[in-house]
């Protein structure tokens, strides 16, 4: 004979059937208030345990902090690069770009990014968050010198932090060497010569000051391609100038015939010469044909 089951055990059995998908959710109505309180506590606890994996081991706190810190650093440098690129494209060079400084990182140097704008290359050295830039610069001079030494094509180095202020300064090659100061004649240690600014602005100012804004080559090339030689040369001006030179020379001539004939040239002859020049520039005749044209003009004259 089977012993009758305790009502709470019986209800739990039914509830596990329900959880395992083989029964309906049981009612608690038939339980006494004490039994119901116990059953409700167990069911509530089962619901709260939903989804918790008792065997899953989470990463340690130290590992999480290290990963979170590394991810934050990566995000910040990436964000700084994007901000600089946006500022340069808006104010200095629509084709400016900022990329990871893979070469420097492979060489073990401190540069994190490379900025390309108007043919300039600026390498980016990131210093402590919130650090005083002057102090950070003084401590970073050897690192900056190493970057300039390893990459002679670098025009400047941006020393910047990556906190929300993103303050930075552009360092020229001359800023990292001891210099003799005038008028005192004393040797002075390296020091910053440009203002500390919001880093994207510092880059934009440097690029604008250093490199003229040349028109894009493609624009010039297409502009010239659309023009003929006749458009480039002021044919009427050249012809008028040539005639004038002949008239002046004729005025100085000693032979009366030469003096009269050369001095008589004027507008009609200049117009004929200009027409001949235009035809020559347009490729309508070669040298021989041009000479023939000139001889005809002489005959007319």
């Amino acid at each position, binding site marked *: 004979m089977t012993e009758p089951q305790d009502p709470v*055990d019986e209800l739990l059995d039914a509830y596990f059937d329900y959880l395992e998908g083989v029964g309906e959710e049981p009612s608690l109505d038939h339980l006494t208030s004490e039994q119901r309180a116990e059953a409700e506590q167990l069911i509530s*606890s089962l619901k709260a345990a939903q*989804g918790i994996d008792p065997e899953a081991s*989470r990463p340690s*706190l130290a590992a999480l902090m290290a*990963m979170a810190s590394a991810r934050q650093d990566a995000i910040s440098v990436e964000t700084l690069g994007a901000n600089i690129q946006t500022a340069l494209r808006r104010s200095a060079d629509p084709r400016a770009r900022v990329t990871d400084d893979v070469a420097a990182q492979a060489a073990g140097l401190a540069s994190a990014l490379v900025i390309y704008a108007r043919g300039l290359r600026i390498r980016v050295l990131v210093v402590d968050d919130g650090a005083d830039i002057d102090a*950070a610069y003084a401590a970073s001079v*050897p*690192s900056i010198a190493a970057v300039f030494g390893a990459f002679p094509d670098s025009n400047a180095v941006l020393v910047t932090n990556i906190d929300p202020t993103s303050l930075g300064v552009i360092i020229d090659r001359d800023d990292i060497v001891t210099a003799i100061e005038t008028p005192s004649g004393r040797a002075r240690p390296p020091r910053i010569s440009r203002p500390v600014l919001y880093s994207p602005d510092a880059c934009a100012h440097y690029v604008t000051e250093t490199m003229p804004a040349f028109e894009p080559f493609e624009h010039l090339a297409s502009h010239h391609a659309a023009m003929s030689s006749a458009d480039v040369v002021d044919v009427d001006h050249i012809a008028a100038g040539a005639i004038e030179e002949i008239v002046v020379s004729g005025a100085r001539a000693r032979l009366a015939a030469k003096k009269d004939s050369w001095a008589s040239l004027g507008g009609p002859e200049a117009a004929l010469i200009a027409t001949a020049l235009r035809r020559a520039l347009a490729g309508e005749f070669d040298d021989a044909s041009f000479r023939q044209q000139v001889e005809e003009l002489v005959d007319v004259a």
Partner: protein
Amino acid sequence: MSTPPTPRPAPRHPLEDDLARLERIVDVMWAAIHQVLDLPTPRRRRIARSDILGEAVSDQLTGGGVSAEDVLTEAFGALLRTPETRVTTTWEGLAVGIARNKTKGALRKAGAWLHETEHRPKLTVISGDAPGRPGPDGDPPEPLLELIEDPAVDLDDEFTKTSQQLELLRLAQEILDDRDRAIFLGMHFGTRTRQSLATQFDLTAPGVTHVYRTTAKRLHDHPRFQRYAEGGAP
């Protein structure tokens, strides 16, 4: 010659001054992430059906393709980046909310390939974007993932409940013998069926239920659990 500066850590977060508290918070975040990711297992699906998602959609959630460790790393970083001025309740409640939101975001991202493209319509296989239970006034159903985090839920209360469960887990591992521990953990966290436990320990299915009940009562009455139940922490 001076040396270049070493990277300085971000400003110290208040929680970093109480690592024991931070450990407890991360434990609950880890559990909260699994609670969202593990909803589709058959047993939990039934609980989800009745309490969270609604009859029509309980089979449609998937946690596939999402790394709980990645989600925890992201959620932990977000917690430490949150300034103290933005905490309206407690760090514990905020941590639960962040963990759930990050898990939802990861599920959505993992399911991005389901969305419509130029070359095909939206796929309708298992998706967290499937509609959930209709609103009480016949309002259109919200997407499934929206129902996982009910804005009305008290996150501090959720934190306490999950902390209690983690304390039950620790107690079970510390004070129960092998049989009782296997039965309690298997039944309570839904990793075993009664029949498999009955076979392993030569019991009937109702016998397994009885062992679970007596063990659960013992753990719930333990002073350490009681401290959590009263809203405190060891």
